[in-house]
């Protein structure tokens, strides 16, 4: 397997040289990316084993710009066979595939081992992995490095110890890092993660030893995403070619019907007829031109949209509930759109808008972007979600904005896009690309929430006006009462203020009582026009 080996070596070396592409540009971002990869891993592990996640994160200061990251979960634990490899080898793992599959957080599986490698590169310290499956009596402790040349785990020490947990995994990595207070802090990431994972129970101890709890809001595990064959419309030529070479199908026709989603016998016949290929041909024997013409006729063929049960949305109720538990809000509206498709990939958009309460009334609204339940904290400006929000005329929805900028007002907008394959603008997976279908869905979902917001804001304004009106009448009543008292008294200038007040009091009481009966009878104090004085 010299070929594979060579490929793996280059992956590890590639990381060493190009870590900025994977989100390890600078100490602050690297620490955050590490938290993210570890938490993603834990959540995915729990969910695939149908376990309600309990996740513990701790960042411990170890010296100047040096931190120990600890992430522990109650996932199924990793069997002895794969444990070292799962953490100590880049691109290992069930998540790595190029087409189809199911919705997952990491999507590429480069994640956790990259964290270990980053720690190793910046501090030289080995990572500690502790894992236990329910079947095992003791937990396995590994201290390991990644061998950059071979992309193999290099286990420094391996022991078995008792663990209080029945099952789970814990990882400790020491790395160079920096804590920012801004929007891109680990705290913000964990808080946002809690919002979109209402079924997870999370606890975070920050570098100052402060404990933050994000309790579970929903005991329902999200609908499990199903494995799915790739939809032909989402498969690019190179991948299509590779699939044709490695398929176990004996004929082109069965290659199409068995390896792809939504391709039945009729569809396959139509595709092959248009491509002028005999369906009985062995896939391995197709030449490049033939593969090309099949791929081309697939693009032109009418094929049913992909099945969407490979998606796992948060669900609008859970999303709303979760947002309410993380923020003190007056109003929440959430929407989960029906799944739809871009370029053959199913995707689904969810939006929640929260309003009022603790939110800042003056500044820009808070925007939380998520892809497959993972917060996106960087590259805000180039993200389709940001663009969709900026493209809406918020003025008509109860917030204010100048065109092309973020709206301002006491609101939080949470946008989640779930997909088998979220199209990111770059490898660091921080911004969603602007595909027309995605932009359209985003816009519709945001607008649907915005309409409810508008109604709420309007109602609130009306109630506010009503109260304002009462206040005004109260204030005016006292002025009028005193003036009338002066008018009806002889030589009022000689009368002491308290005696004028005494005369005024019953007059004011009457005025207020009259105002109240008018309100009570529902007889709006008529909004008569201003008289026309010139």
């Amino acid at each position, binding site marked *: 397997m010299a070929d594979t080996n060579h490929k793996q070596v280059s992956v590890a070396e590639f990381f060493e040289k190009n870590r900025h592409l994977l989100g390890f540009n600078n100490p602050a971002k690297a620490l955050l990316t590490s938290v993210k990869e570890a938490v993603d891993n834990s959540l995915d592990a729990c969910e695939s084993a149908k376990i309600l996640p309990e996740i513990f994160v701790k960042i411990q200061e170890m010296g100047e710009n040096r931190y120990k990251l600890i992430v522990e979960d109650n996932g199924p634990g990793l069997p002895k066979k794969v444990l070292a490899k799962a953490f100590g080898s880049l691109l290992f793992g069930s998540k790595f595939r190029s087409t189809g599959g199911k919705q997952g957080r990491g999507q590429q599986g480069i994640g956790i081992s990259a964290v270990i490698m980053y720690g190793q590169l910046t501090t030289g310290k080995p990572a500690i992995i502790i894992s236990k499956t329910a079947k095992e009596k003791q937990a396995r402790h590994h201290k390991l490095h990644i061998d950059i040349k071979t992309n193999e785990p290099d286990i420094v020490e391996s022991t078995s110890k008792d663990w209080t947990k029945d099952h789970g995994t814990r990882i400790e990595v020491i790395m160079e890092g920096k804590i920012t207070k801004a929007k891109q802090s680990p705290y913000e990431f964990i808080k946002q993660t809690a919002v979109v994972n209402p079924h997870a129970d999370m606890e975070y101890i920050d570098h100052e030893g402060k404990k933050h709890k994000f309790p579970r809001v929903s005991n329902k595990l999200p609908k499990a995403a199903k494995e799915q064959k790739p939809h032909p419309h989402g498969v690019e030529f190179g991948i299509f070619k590779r699939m044709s070479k490695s398929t176990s199908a004996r004929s082109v026709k069965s290659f199409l019907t068995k390896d792809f989603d939504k391709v039945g016998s009729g569809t396959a016949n139509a595709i092959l007829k248009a491509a002028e290929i005999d369906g009985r041909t062995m896939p391995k024997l197709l030449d490049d031109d033939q593969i090309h013409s099949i791929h081309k006729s697939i693009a032109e063929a009418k094929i049913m949209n992909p099945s969407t049960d490979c998606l796992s949305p948060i669900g609008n109720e859970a999303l709303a509930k979760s947002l309410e538990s993380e923020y003190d809000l007056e109003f929440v509206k959430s929407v989960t759109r029906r799944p739809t498709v871009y370029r053959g990939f199913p995707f689904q958009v969810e939006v929640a808008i929260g309003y009022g309460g603790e939110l800042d009334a003056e500044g820009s609204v808070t925007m939380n972007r998520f892809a497959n339940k993972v917060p996106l904290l960087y590259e805000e400006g180039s993200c389709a979600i940001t663009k969709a929000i900026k493209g809406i005329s918020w003025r008509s929805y109860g917030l204010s904005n100048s065109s092309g900028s973020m709206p301002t007002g006491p609101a939080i907008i949470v946008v989640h896009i779930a997909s088998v394959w979220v199209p990111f603008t770059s490898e660091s997976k921080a911004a969603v690309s602007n595909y027309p279908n995605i932009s359209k869905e985003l816009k519709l979902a945001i607008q649907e929430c915005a309409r409810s917001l508008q109604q709420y804001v309007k109602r609130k304004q009306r109630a506010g006006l009503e109260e304002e009106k009462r206040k005004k009448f109260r204030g005016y009543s006292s002025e009028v009462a005193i003036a009338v008292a002066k008018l009806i008294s002889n030589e009022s200038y000689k009368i002491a203020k308290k005696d004028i007040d005494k005369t005024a009091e019953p007059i004011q009481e009457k005025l207020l009582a009259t105002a109240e009966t008018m309100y009570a009878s529902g007889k709006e104090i008529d909004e*008569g026009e201003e008289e026309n004085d010139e």
Partner: protein
Amino acid sequence: MTNSKKDIIAKLKKIGEQLEKTIKENDNPEITMPVRTLTNAYFDEKDKLIRLGDKRQSRTFFNVGQSRKFMQTVLIAAQIKELLEQDKPSISTRQLYYILKHTIEGLKENTFEDQAESDPVIEDLEVAADSLREELGLEPTPKGVFCGPITYKDVRTGDEINCRKMGTAGAAIPANVEPTAMEFQKSEAKFVLVVEKFAVWNILNQMKFWDKHKCILLTGKGQGERSARRLVSRLNKELKLPVYVFCDFDPYGYYIYSVYKQGSINLAHFSERAGCPDAKYIGLKYDDIEKYKIPKTNWIKMNDQDMKRLKEIQNYDWFKKKEWQKEIEKVKKWGWKVESDSLVSLGIEFMGEKYLPRVIKEADFLD
């Protein structure tokens, strides 16, 4: 009809009592007053005055659009009553605004935000109490001057003012020219000459035109304000002096003349006391241009706005007389205007020695 202080106090008190009664009956308190807009001003053909019609409006408290103004009206009424009861010096409308301006308890607003809010309410109260501002103890800022063979007594100070000896400055028109404040005494005047421009008045005064022709020479410095108009009206009615008005030869000059004569729309309630229905327009007139060969260099082309104003004036009921319609038609066709100042190009004394004496002698007026 003039009101004494007592009358006004009684009127204001009555307004207060009416309000109290309505309030105690749990009803919506209101103050009614004549409408003071063009829609309710009309030209009284018989008396030749612009008058206020019968249309009344009511200002109520329990009305979102009116409650603030209602409050302001009552505040002003109460304050005026207090000032009148105390026999204090008259104040200006601006001073009244300052007396009443304060922050309303529990609100972030003031009773009045600026004088532009209080001034119209004062005019409302004038008509609501069927009275004049001067009677309410509020005085406008006068700007006119006059002189001539007359002496008057300033009642409040007791000074006797001899308008024959006022020098080049002339006598300032007092803020309050009501009989209760200004008593006419010895007079040899035979008519009143009102000129629009101070510069014209200034030449005529220096020439002692008023002494030679035994007239009261007065200028309102442009549009005549309340006290100038009221003074001219009193001279006309009480001393039976004819009134002649000399203005610029343009639509605005026409209007200034007409305000002295019939009153204005805005102060239609004031016309009765400030109008001089038999006042005459001296000029300039269209025929004068030809008659005196006023050089073309003195003419000014009328612009669109001038033309528009001229057409408006032609449509006013009080300019419907044949002679005016003919005059305006001619001017419209001609398309120019001439300032009275420009007549000095025919000689500094031209106006005082030639033009005015001839027009007055020949009664070459427009009426």
